[in-house]
């Protein structure tokens, strides 16, 4: 394979050019990760007077803790909920763009806006919309006989955080789906139409299989997003409640560490999360390379 190679006359220059990137990686990634890793083997009292090396005790405790099991389960439900909701909605919207010709550009531009909204702001927005006292949606739900209260109901709370977290991710998925759909040769769909396939049949036998690499990529990205980037959404809406029902892993790290001041357990939890991210990334690279060739 041909690669472009640049020959540097000066031996120091290439390292100097790499330095900013390496510095950022060290300061913001390697160093904190190392700190968390070290901390996960320590036990420290709440006031920081005494630190003790406890080997794997933090991990051992964690894996038998029913609250941690609950948090794991909540995370699974939440991630799948966010991934499915945002992917399906985005795909439907992207298909709609394909069908409208004249206003497609304006439509696309508008749909991309939510992605520019910060997660915390999105959380607050949905918190207002769903607020049992002043929100418009509970008011509407009340008219059809549903008593919405995410402060009491575990189900309501979960729906709220899933909707709030999915909302801005839809924009991201939408862009990828629009690009994916545009890459499908139009003649394929026409050939299927001539072969007698109706719109639904065409979608499930031609379009969706052709989109599968895009869909798989987005699935992984969305799960990673739901698991790690939704702290602000949870924090702005339910704060993990009621009764731990929306306390996802990443929020629990924060709660145990910074509210509960149990730094050892919090560090152990973040190391577990780190392992999950690495695993997901490996899956993504391994699978995507295989799946792109249909």
């Amino acid at each position, binding site marked *: 394979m041909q690669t472009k190679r640049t020959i540097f006359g000066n031996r120091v220059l290439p390292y100097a050019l790499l330095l900013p990137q390496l510095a950022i990686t060290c300061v913001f990634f390697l160093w904190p990760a190392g700190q968390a890793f070290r901390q996960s083997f320590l036990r420290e009292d709440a006031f920081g007077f005494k630190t003790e090396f406890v080997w794997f005790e933090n991990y051992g405790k964690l894996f038998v803790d029913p609250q941690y099991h609950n948090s794991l389960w909540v995370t699974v439900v939440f991630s799948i909920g966010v991934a499915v909701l945002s992917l399906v909605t985005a795909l439907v919207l992207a298909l709609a763009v394909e069908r409208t010709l004249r206003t497609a550009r304006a439509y696309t531009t508008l749909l991309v806006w939510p992605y520019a909204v910060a997660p915390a702001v999105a959380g607050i927005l949905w918190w207002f919309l769903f607020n049992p006292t002043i929100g418009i949606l509970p008011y509407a739900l009340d008219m059809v006989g549903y008593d919405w209260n995410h402060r009491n109901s575990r189900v309501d709370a979960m729906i709220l955080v899933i909707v709030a977290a999915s909302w801005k991710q839809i924009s991201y998925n939408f862009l990828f789906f629009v690009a994916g759909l545009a890459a499908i*040769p139009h*003649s*394929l769909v*026409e*050939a*299927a*139409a*001539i*072969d*007698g*396939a*109706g719109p639904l*049949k065409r979608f499930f*036998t*031609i379009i969706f*299989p*052709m989109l599968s690499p895009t869909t798989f990529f987005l699935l992984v990205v969305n799960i990673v997003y739901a698991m790690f980037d939704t702290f602000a959404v949870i924090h702005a809406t339910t704060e993990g409640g009621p009764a731990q029902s929306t306390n996802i892993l990443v929020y629990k790290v924060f709660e145990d560490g910074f509210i509960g001041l149990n730094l050892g357990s919090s560090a152990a939890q973040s190391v577990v999360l780190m392992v999950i991210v690495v695993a997901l990334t490996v899956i993504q690279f391994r699978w995507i390379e295989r799946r792109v*060739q*249909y």
Partner: protein
Amino acid sequence: MSAIAIRGVRKNYGKTEVIHGVDIDIADGEFIVIVGPSGCGKSTLLRMVAGLETITEGTIEIGGRVVNRLEPGERDIAMVFQNYALYPHMSVFDNMAYGLKIAGLSKTDIRARVGKTAAMLQLEPFLDRKPRQLSGGQRQRVAMGRALVRDPAAFLLDEPLSNLDAKLRVQMRLEIKQLQQSVGTTALYVTHDQVEAMTLADRLVVMHDGVAEQIDTPMAVYARPATTFVAGFIGSPAMNMLPVEAAGNLGLTLANGRTVKPRDIRLPEKGRKAILGVRPEHIAPVSGANADLELDVVAVETLGADTLAHGRLAGAADGSGELVARLPGSTQVQPGDLLPLAIEPGMAHLFDAETGARLAELDLPAKAARAVKPLAEALNA
């Protein structure tokens, strides 16, 4: 009853009309080629027959049924696309079986029909492969197979050979013609390649700017082009066009002031402006006294069998009177030569100077037979 009837079909995109009323009647089993330059509306017309474009005005009938409002899948047609449009995630077998599965055939029926078609196209060894594992020619065959297997009322082919290299194109051209003859299914074939058009067609439709300028057999289109456009489009190098003015008994006055009197054609009334068309292969070098016109040779192309002499009508003003002559390969010509040429009897075409339409009333009835003879010989050789 005709297999396909296109009646007064028009197509608008917004306010622009791109097809201005086309009428074609296609008999059962006929191979019709629509030929024209890019942008002439030939693909649009085909896609309207297929149901991939809406019909603004007029009707299209397939097998005696008006199909204007039918979905593509309900029209009983099969189409071969320029890029083949094979489903990349399906094996060759599944590609060919897709339409049959949707039609609700049983597994054994599908297996039998795909097997038969694959045998006919020598695709059996590739049935389990994906399209990306096939060569261009094999993909083209699969696309043909996908159309054949459904046994439709008509094949629609949209420039199916233009993605192949020149050698393969000649081979596939022959294969398509033989296949169509063996299954006897009506075919509507779109191309911009005049050689493809001439060799494949039972009848040609020459389109230009959304109008079918001439619909006739390839030989008739060649021998009696209906317009200056058709005359220039069919035949290579293109027909020479010289503006002339009728001069009564003297013949026709050329741009250089001299007169020619082509034989075996009636002449227009004196004073009428016309365009004299002569194919490069129908002007022969003669001795000076018998010359109809003289070619001021500018460039010479030697093709082996033929030599093409490009130049200008001697004495014509700059920029006018472009002229090409196809001479026997042994002819010695050099740029700068003044070549005396004669128009072969009956090989002159006259067109209206304004509209470009053939002045058909001037053709002698005997001319057609004479025109066909040497060409038939050439084809047999």
